């Protein structure tokens, strides 16, 4: 008798539990379904260039000429791949030392001022929309380059500079977290031996936190690689490999942004653009795996 009463009481309790479990599981299922379908649709569209239209994969990856309207149409995506890599790597090369210095400043030199002023400043940088960065790049950086350097001012240099400001928060935040998480004993030991602050940073802090710093840099590159509109606004969008940093160039994202609306779904030109998107997506996976590898290496 007592047992059955207990069972009756337990019922709404269990139902509630069940609702919660099923609901949260459904949400997770939605999430997984989304990523699976993104991969499936982008891959099937991107691969149809090779399987349906019989474009050679190597031709696409290494071809220097992109002429979707030409007779015959030529799809060489190397200029875009080159543009994407050069802008994002250059952006990381500019932003990494800046971000590292900002992190050292916040953790080692002036923690109070850093936490109170510099950190919110950097978080604000992260919040500014990319089109605004593009607008500023177009109305400040490009005219400046045009006046100072030969050329039109648009190009890889302008793109990389805009991107470097955009990825600065990513790199700084991760570097700051890594430096702050460093065990105190390491630094104190170094100071006790009579090392200066810079010697400690250079010989102890930097090598120990290197994997985490690299993680930040790779995440920054990944963000720069996928950024579309800001780069598109300042890079000039000419589908060839430029001979100087101040000559018009193009990236994977800017090519997709500009041409996707002008091609008919399912046409060869359209499929080729999806192949660019597929390259972009595969690079994202590569970046994620590099980050995972680096995170495995850091043993803080």
């Amino acid at each position: 008798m007592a047992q059955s009463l207990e069972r009756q009481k337990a019922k709404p309790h269990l139902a509630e539990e069940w609702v919660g479990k099923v609901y949260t599981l459904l949400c997770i299922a939605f999430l997984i379904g989304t990523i699976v379908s993104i991969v499936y649709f982008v891959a099937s569209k991107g691969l149809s260039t090779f399987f349906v239209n019989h474009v050679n994969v190597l031709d696409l990856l290494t071809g220097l000429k992109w002429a979707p309207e030409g007779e015959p149409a030529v799809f060489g995506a190397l200029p875009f791949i080159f543009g994407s890599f050069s802008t994002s790597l250059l952006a990381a090369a500019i932003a990494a030392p800046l971000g590292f210095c900002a992190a050292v400043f916040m953790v080692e030199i002036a923690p109070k001022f850093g936490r109170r002023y510099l950190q919110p400043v950097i978080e604000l940088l992260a919040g500014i929309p990319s089109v605004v960065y593009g607008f500023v790049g177009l109305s400040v950086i490009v005219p400046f380059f045009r006046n100072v350097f030969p050329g039109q001012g648009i190009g890889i240099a302008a793109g990389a500079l805009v991107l470097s400001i955009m990825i600065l928060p990513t790199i700084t935040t991760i570097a700051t977290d890594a430096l702050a998480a460093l065990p105190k004993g390491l630094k104190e030991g170094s100071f006790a031996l009579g090392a200066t602050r810079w010697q400690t940073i250079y010989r102890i802090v930097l090598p120990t936190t290197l994997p985490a710093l690299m993680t930040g840099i790779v995440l920054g590159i990944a963000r720069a690689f996928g950024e579309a509109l800001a780069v598109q606004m300042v890079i000039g969008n000419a589908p060839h490999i430029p001979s100087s940093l101040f000559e018009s160039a193009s990236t994977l994202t800017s090519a997709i942004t500009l041409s996707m609306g002008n091609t008919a779904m399912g046409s060869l030109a359209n499929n080729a653009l999806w192949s660019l998107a597929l390259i972009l997506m595969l690079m994202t996976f590569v970046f994620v795996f590099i980050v995972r590898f680096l995170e495995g290496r850091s043993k803080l």
Partner: protein
Amino acid sequence: MKAKTADKIATSVIIAVAAFIVLILAGLLGYILFRGVGHISFHFLTSAPETIRKGGGIGPQLFNSVFLLVLTMIITIPIGLGAGIYMSEYAPANRITSAIRLVVEVLSSVPSIIVGLFGLLVLVNLFGFGFSLFSGALALTVFNLPLMVRITEQGLKGVPREQKEASLALGLSKWKTITSVMLPIGLPVILTGTILAAGRVFGEAAALLFTAGMSSPRLDFTDWNPFSPFSPLNPFRPAETLAVHIWKINSEGLAPDAAQIAAGASAVLVITVLLFNFAARWLGRYMYRKFTAIK
């Protein structure tokens, strides 16, 4: 002696770089506001844009951005909360869970333009939603979900163990414990993160080019029937947002005052993002104080 000189030089370089970063941001904000604020007026904020004539405004774009933000959050919050709760409370520590974690990580690093293309293919064409606010909101949901999951997880992880255990010990079900004990405690963190995520939605453009579209129909602000094609409330109409508008007039603007419009619209966008930031900070601090009774 040499090591001390090196230390001094390095320290001054680092301080100089930190100052330089502050200067960049000050210059950036100053430039955007200085160039743009003068152009902001009631007329600019409420009137419709002009294609070739001078004096166009950003009224419909501003409305679209806000409407899209609301729609996106209505879809994102329940799913993101649910998935976040699962990840922090229900997920067993096994391979499947770490695979899901990887999936969330991948999803959070997929470029927004890819999400936009996916939206174009699946939402706009396959499901037939067309270029619409609804497609845009769903695309932004995809884009925002991983963020929301992480925020929820973070919020729930911050809840003291004892509070969770006390609730379970009183005989409350796990679900009840989560919804009535843990969520309220984690709320300051979750809310702050959500507002910051909303700020991102407001400025997002790449994913919207191919889902919400690059044009806005002539809106009739007296027509509040959500099924009429010219009603601002209709979620199935194409909608150009403020961020997309800035991009469009910078790349192909024909109006003679395109540069001023871009500057004004950028200023509006940045001011909004700043407001979101301050609101998130203030609200987070306020709720933290209220819940923890710390003065």
